């Protein structure tokens, strides 16, 4: 697989599949959440309508260049993560541009999108955006800590900073997954995952009841379309990240879809039944439970 053109082609195809799966997944999750609320809920294909509609708005005003760039940064964060994330283990076509140190790069991209978004949202001039941004960044910092600790723990465990290696080490049956070999890191990681997905109780960044709706308050039309596109990609890629780290990766598209769905479902499962923390509660919680788990994971590895 030396031909970069074919590689790129498959990467784009993968992006397309991931985007669609992200949208459908969002639809399915909406359905599930609706069922818990005893209702039918929006159709599974509703995210598509939303996306087309957002792109088809006739006007879209901007608040300056940074405002414009915000969603683009966010999107490049998501796509960047995707580019360096191996999707299917053992497949050359679906490993994207993963390389030896991709774990570090992905962590960087995870934060890059956030920052770009923060800059853009701040430019919107809305106080709720500003509040949302400051909350988002402070919470993200505390999420990063246990997550990074968990990843360090795994890196120590597998002596590698490459996803391909980490996934390879987990092959050969369910018991080889990090979930069983390093449960503390998994616990820390999965709790951090709750924070990264932005569901309750950690959704105060965009808490509709206090700061509607946080950073994207001023974003609309195409801008919001870009953000939504990114969200669809990001949700899958985040899940793939955790799948690769803790749950043995995937060897086929089916396995990938099943596992990412379950991982994403975990955040929904918790999110539906809990209200949201206040920011200081959220921060202190992350600094308490997952962080201690993460430290323990490093100690006991």
């Amino acid at each position, binding site marked *: 697989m030396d031909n970069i053109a074919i590689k790129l082609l498959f990467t784009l195809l993968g992006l397309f599949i991931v985007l669609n799966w992200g949208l459908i997944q969002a639809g399915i999750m909406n359905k599930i959440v609706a069922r*818990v*609320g*005893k*209702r039918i809920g929006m159709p599974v294909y509703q995210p598509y309508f939303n996306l087309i509609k957002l792109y088809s708005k006739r006007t879209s005003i901007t608040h300056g260049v940074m405002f414009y760039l915000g969603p683009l940064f966010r999107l490049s964060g998501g796509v960047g993560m995707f580019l360096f994330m191996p999707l299917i283990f053992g497949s050359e076509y679906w490993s994207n541009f993963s390389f030896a140190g991709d774990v570090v790069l992905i962590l960087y991209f995870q934060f890059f999108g956030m920052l770009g978004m923060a800059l853009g949202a701040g430019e919107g001039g809305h*106080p*709720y955006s*500003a*509040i949302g941004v400051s909350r988002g960044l402070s919470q993200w910092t505390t999420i990063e800590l246990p997550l990074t600790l968990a990843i360090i723990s795994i890196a120590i465990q597998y002596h590698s900073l490459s996803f391909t290696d980490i996934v390879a080490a987990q092959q050969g049956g369910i018991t080889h997954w990090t979930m069983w070999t390093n449960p503390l890191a998994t616990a820390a990681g999965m709790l951090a995952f709750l924070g990264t997905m932005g569901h*309750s*109780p950690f*959704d*105060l960044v965009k*808490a*509709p*009841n*206090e*700061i*509607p709706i946080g950073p994207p308050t001023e974003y609309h039309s195409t801008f919001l379309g870009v953000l939504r596109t990114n969200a669809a990609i990001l949700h899958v890629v985040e899940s793939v990240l955790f799948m690769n780290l803790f749950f043995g990766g995937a060897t086929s598209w089916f396995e990938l879809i099943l596992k990412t769905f379950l991982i994403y479902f975990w955040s929904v499962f918790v999110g*539906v*039944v*809990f*209200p*949201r*923390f*206040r*920011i*200081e*509660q959220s921060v202190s919680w992350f600094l308490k439970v997952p962080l201690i788990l993460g430290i323990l994971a490093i100690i006991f590895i």
Partner: protein
Amino acid sequence: MKKNSKLIWTPDRSKFPEQNSDGSLDVDLASQKYVKVWQGPNHPGVTGNMSLELTICGDEIVQAKTHVGYLHRGFEKLIERRKFIQGFTTCIRMCVAEPDTNEYNFSRCVEELSGIEVPEMANWLRALALEMARLQMLLRIVPGQGNTTGLGLGVQWGVYLRDLILDRFEELTGGRVYHMYITPGGVRGLLPDGFKQRMEDALKKIDEFIVDITKLMYNNAVFKKRTVGVGYLDPAWIDKFGVVGPNARAAGFKRDVRKDYPYLIYDKLDYEPFTATDSDIYTRSLVRREDLRTTVELIRQIMAKMPKTGNIRAQTPNVLHWKIPKGETYVRCESSRGEYGYYMVTDGSEFPRRVNLRGPSYVHAVSLLEKLLVGANIADVSSMMVSLGTCPPEIER
């Protein structure tokens, strides 16, 4: 709930600017230390259509001003132009969420001033309508408290049950939201066939709901963390601000108009209002849940004890030219948010001279909320508003 005084949160007001004599603060916005944030009127966290002008320092509120008037329709002026029979259709819009208390108070004022005795059956039906109205309001408020902290699930269940009660209202009164059932002189219809059975079915579902919502919300670790000890209302403030109803009951004051000044047939019913002492958001919410329980019980009692049939309207003067001699009166009843009073003055003509509504939100959501919010976290604003039972239309009328 176990009393846990350690959790009670009292704002440390020392670090805020000194208050002026008239209660205002000198907040220098240019110092960049403070940010002014408007919540509302277009804001999902603000109940109804009102707005809060918050000056915040970090996440803490330094100064809060409530702004009302977005729903002002000049009711008290309009009623001065409406005949007594027309007034009750107008005044009920003063509180959208629980209109029946308005109907009842208005009718009772008219009856009292013109000396009309309402038939027994009508009194039972009025009590039924009032309790159903309280029930549907509580079914919004109780899970609504969860919604303010981000727990939207309870609302999905609660509003469905509220809809079942509205269906019963529709059968009984012909109206879904605005029932216009209690007219001066009586009520507008008897129970339809099979009403009691369908009502009982709905009440059974509400019983289940109380269990479910307790598991989901009241026993929820995060919910407790968000509400226990937050929004503490000092019992000393109850009289100072004129706090009534569930908010007073949550602070240990047993204030319930139904018990204190029995009206209709409430003295024939057997119940005890729930009181608690912690006086925070959680406790106020708890009082409302217990109110919900009580109300379900009361509706059961009313339906069991009420006469089968009877006259539902006293013979009033011809409503097209109903004149009431000069006089004035004040009547009150217990709404889901506390004492709900009407002050009516008549001058011998076909129109009332003055009708003044005393809604509990008038003090809860303006003077009290402004004080209570100082030092609070901006995230708790909407929790506090809902826990106080704010209903903006009754503030501005």
